[in-house]
């Protein structure tokens, strides 16, 4: 019960914090953003992943051009499936309420995954060893989230993305589909 009260209070405080009509005062009509954060991912079969995410973006006229890199750290659960799954994305976002501090956005980013299955290996007849190929596979992601800009320099962000694609190699294919969350603090200039 106590936990519920704390949660409700926290939610109200958060909503109140984001609902203010505070406008951004800036002398320029563009913005550069960069951030580093941890991004947890959710796969099927009760499996989670954790990535380190780096972001760099350029915002002008409600459009943000953004590149994201994910460095795969580890995965846990019933079916971890990858020993490597680093990903690079670049794409565009549409930002709502760009004159306000609280700015929701939606976007699409195509990308490339450098992946290696931990489950399926293929026999190399010459060496008689089991090999797990590292391959480069196209992926896509649909993203939605928000930025909350401070007075200067810092911004807070939270976003969710759905990733789709397939790891293909010389053995069984594995889906790269994943639901991923990111949140953290970034720098803006």
């Amino acid at each position, binding site marked *: 019960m106590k936990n519920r009260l704390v949660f409700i209070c926290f939610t109200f405080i958060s909503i109140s914090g984001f609902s203010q009509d505070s406008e951004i005062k800036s002398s320029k009509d563009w913005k550069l953003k960069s951030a580093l954060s941890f991004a947890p991912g959710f796969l099927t079969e009760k499996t989670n992943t954790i990535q380190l995410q780096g972001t760099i973006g350029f915002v*002008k*006229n*409600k*459009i943000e*051009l953004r590149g994201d890199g994910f460095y795969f750290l580890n995965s846990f659960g019933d079916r971890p499936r990858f020993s490597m799954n680093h990903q690079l994305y*670049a*794409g*565009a976002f*549409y930002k709502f309420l760009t004159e306000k501090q609280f700015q929701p956005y939606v976007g*699409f980013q*195509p*990308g*490339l995954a450098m992946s290696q299955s931990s489950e*399926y*290996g*293929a*026999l*190399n*007849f010459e060496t008689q060893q*089991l090999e797990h190929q590292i391959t*480069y*596979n*196209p*992926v*896509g992601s649909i993203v939605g989230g928000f930025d909350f800009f401070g007075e200067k320099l810092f911004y807070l962000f939270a976003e969710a993305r759905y990733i*789709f*694609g*397939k790891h*293909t*190699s*010389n*053995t*069984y*294919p594995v889906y790269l589909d994943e639901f991923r969350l990111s949140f953290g603090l970034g720098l803006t200039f």
Partner: protein
Amino acid sequence: MTRYKYIFILLVLGVSNTFSQKIYAEKGNIELGLRTTSSVFGHDPYNGLGIGGQTRVQITDYLNTEWFVDWITIDLAGAGTRKNAHIGWSVLFYPKKMGKFIPYLIAGHCFDYAKVTPLSTQYLDRSHDEVTRWSSAVQMGLGSHYYLNDRFNLSFSAQYMMHLGNHLEYELLETEKGYYLETNKDKHTGERLEGHVLLTLSLNYKIADLW
């Protein structure tokens, strides 16, 4: 009746406002873009997903050029994979510009590298059955830009790509245990036409206006 008239007038005004004013896609524009490509209706009944990049150099107000690279992977029913790399160029012709919305005819040429890898397992190594090919291809189709602002546009195109050169010989066979990919390295299979449809969605940013 009056209500419908108002709606109609508002609609006409809205549409004319969208299609008027600023002129986009002018000569001298140089754009950089990223693209995601889906390969459909090809040799195999399975779709591929690809990623690539492109640069556009606009020659005249009604003629643009596109220089692109693509990397596409296709899962062949779990029995193998096909990987395609394209590097090529296209010419875009704009018959009519409608403000932010600019439809175009597109045609071009590219070089294509394809590799088909049959499934290997922990007990079976089929790497020697891998088949590869370099070929040339021509493509043509229709597309459209939609300008989100002065510098930034979203483009979608559908093109039919026809490969000219040696046919990549492989076949998916349905067996009791599932699909089996049979490949044939025989070079004497001859030249045959092979085609597929490429659906491309790209995001492009104008970096310069040179002339």
